[in-house]
């Protein structure tokens, strides 16, 4: 019995070995596993307001019109973070420029600005920003903060004032989310797309190429096939989890509150889930094209109902029921809590368990329906 067990175990190893070799030799793997996370992360980073987004177009409403405000505008220009499209004399014009979407924000310098400075009174600048583009708004706010800070240093020397407070007002949309808020989306995207589409062709490719006919002439079982492939693709794609996390952190200065280990564990659980789903697709697909299509198709409901685009809380009851059937929803929730709120792992046990239940179901179905036959 034990001997048989060992022999069984030994049959999985050659499969893992073979799959890993094949994966490493396939340029598609390198492309998907290495390039995709980096590319997607960078695209996201820039698209949603990364560091290097260049100058932000803004408008300025100068109600003061004296030395103090001229100097502030000069400082904005010097910062190279803003392109000042227009300087208005009324708040209404400033608002309009943001409403119309022409600029990201409009900065209002109040009427008594110079006077306040001279008299050493605390004063302020007001930023009206477009919250529909939350990450850009976030960066505009930061940039204004920096400029204000600099100006303050200059003003302090000259007038002895220390208090210029930037005030932020949303023009529309709810409260702004931070850049970091996109990390869960990013991770979900990468940890589902890459592993699922890679592994989804693994079995039907063997059928298409004819290699399955020789393969099933050996005493391999469905368990060997499913777990051998799962292990190999896990080894090949685990770098995705690390790579995406690092790219996000390094390139975009995203500061995640959670411990790296916790984020990694949550990502791993989801990665294995994606692989299992891909295997199930592979078991049911007739050819590679079909498998690819299925793995892309399955992504659509995941995107819609996992909270990636719209928070699940504000969806209809029916939609919430669908969300409950989508593993990515649990990942988004767990990862957000662990990464952004710094929760401990045990606090997301519920999501982890549910993801693993889905994984188990996918694997059991794969084993049940994998036919050790040629068609």
């Amino acid at each position: 019995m034990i001997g048989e067990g060992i022999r069984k175990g030994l049959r999985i190893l050659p499969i893992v070995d073979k799959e890993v070799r094949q994966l490493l030799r396939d340029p598609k793997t390198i492309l998907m596993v290495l390039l995709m996370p980096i590319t997607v992360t960078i695209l996201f980073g820039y698209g949603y307001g990364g560091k290097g987004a260049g100058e932000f177009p803004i408008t300025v409403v100068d109600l003061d019109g004296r030395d103090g405000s001229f100097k502030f505008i000069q400082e904005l220009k010097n910062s190279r973070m803003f392109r000042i499209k227009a300087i208005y004399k009324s708040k209404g014009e400033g608002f309009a420029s943001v409403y119309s979407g022409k600029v990201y924000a409009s900065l209002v310098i109040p009427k008594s600005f110079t006077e306040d400075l001279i008299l050493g009174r605390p004063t302020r600048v007001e930023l009206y920003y477009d919250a529909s583009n939350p990450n850009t708004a976030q960066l505009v706010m930061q940039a204004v903060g920096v400029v204000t800070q600099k100006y303050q240093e200059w003003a302090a020397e000259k007038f002895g004032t220390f208090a210029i407070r930037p005030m932020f007002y949303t023009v529309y949309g709810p409260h702004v989310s931070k850049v970091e808020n996109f990390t869960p989306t990013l991770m979900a995207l990468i940890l589902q797309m890459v592993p699922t589409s890679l592994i989804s062709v693994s079995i039907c490719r063997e059928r298409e190429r004819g290699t399955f006919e020789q393969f099933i002439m050996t005493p391999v079982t469905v368990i060997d096939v499913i777990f051998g492939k799962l292990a190999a693709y896990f080894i090949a794609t685990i770098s995705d989890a690390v790579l995406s996390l690092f790219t996000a952190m390094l390139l975009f200065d995203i500061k995640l509150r959670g411990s790296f280990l916790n984020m990694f564990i949550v990502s791993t659980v989801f990665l294995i889930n994606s692989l299992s789903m891909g295997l199930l697709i592979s078991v049911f697909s007739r050819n590679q094209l079909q498998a690819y299509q299925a793995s892309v198709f399955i992504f659509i409901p995941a995107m819609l109902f996992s909270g990636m685009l719209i928070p699940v809380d504000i969806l209809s009851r029916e939609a919430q029921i669908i969300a409950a059937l989508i593993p990515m929803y649990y990942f988004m929730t767990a990862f957000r809590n662990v990464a952004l709120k710094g929760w401990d792992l045990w606090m997301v046990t519920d999501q982890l368990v549910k993801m693993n239940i889905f994984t188990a179901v996918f694997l059991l179905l794969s084993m049940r329906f994998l036919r050790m036959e040629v068609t």
Partner: protein
Amino acid sequence: MTIASETVSLEFKETLAIEAKGLTKKFGNFIAVDHIDLEIKTGENFGLLGPNGAGKTTTIRMITGVIKPTEGIVRVFGIDVMRHRKRVLRLIGYMPQRFSLYEDLTVEENLRLYGRLQGLSGNLLEERISNSLDRFYLREFRSRLAGKLSGGTKQRLALAVALVHNPKLLILDEPTAGVDPPLRRMFWEHFRELNKEGKTILVTTHYMDEAENCDRLALMNRGKIIAMGTPKEIKRKAMGGDLIELSVDGEIVPENLPGVISVHEISDERIVLVVDDASLRLPDIVKAVESSGGKVRMAAPVHVSLEEAFIKFMGE
């Protein structure tokens, strides 16, 4: 208790390497293999012949269990392939018609993978790999990707992989397709050696000169076996008997000669007779002609090629 009963059936069928009864495969409405019976003895070199689409590959796939028969049973060394496939697998070495090894693995990696999957390890595994590399002249290609090999080398590798676990039964689906004549000869020399080692071989081929080397043949057409036997028997069946060519001075009535079944061909110059057994009847016929006053200028058995027999059967 089941073990005991299986042992009995094993002993009972011991001499049969492959036994198929009423084996049938339908693809939708199309019957690819139609109730065939097959008995292949241990140690035999059995050839399966037939035109394209006859159902040879389908038959073989049912014997190896990579497809399920619609009807009928197959036993390999007495073991039911459908019910105990795992036990059968260790006994079979299979070379599919289409090259089925991993083209993105090297020659050695393919050998190693299949050795390990068949349960070999350690020294034994290394030894087998090394032997295979030498035996099939693959050593110089050991680090080459299988996909980058020439057709003949691919076939050598496929044969090496089929043999890596030292199976008792070899099932080879067109092993010499796309292989040059010297290598074809080498393959068949190998098969003969393997037969000598006591291994059973089931092989398909479209080359009739190769089929002559088989102990027994089955001729398939449209899913049915239309003839079975030794090459000699097959030829006899195709012509209705053996052929004897006669050249005679004087009048004779060919139908009255001993052992004559029919007259195959007749002209002023020569007569070709169909007899039940050429070697047995030839002296009798010469005697009969001479005793009736004729003079035999020439009398010889006519060699019938398997190809002629094959075409004759197909024509019917």
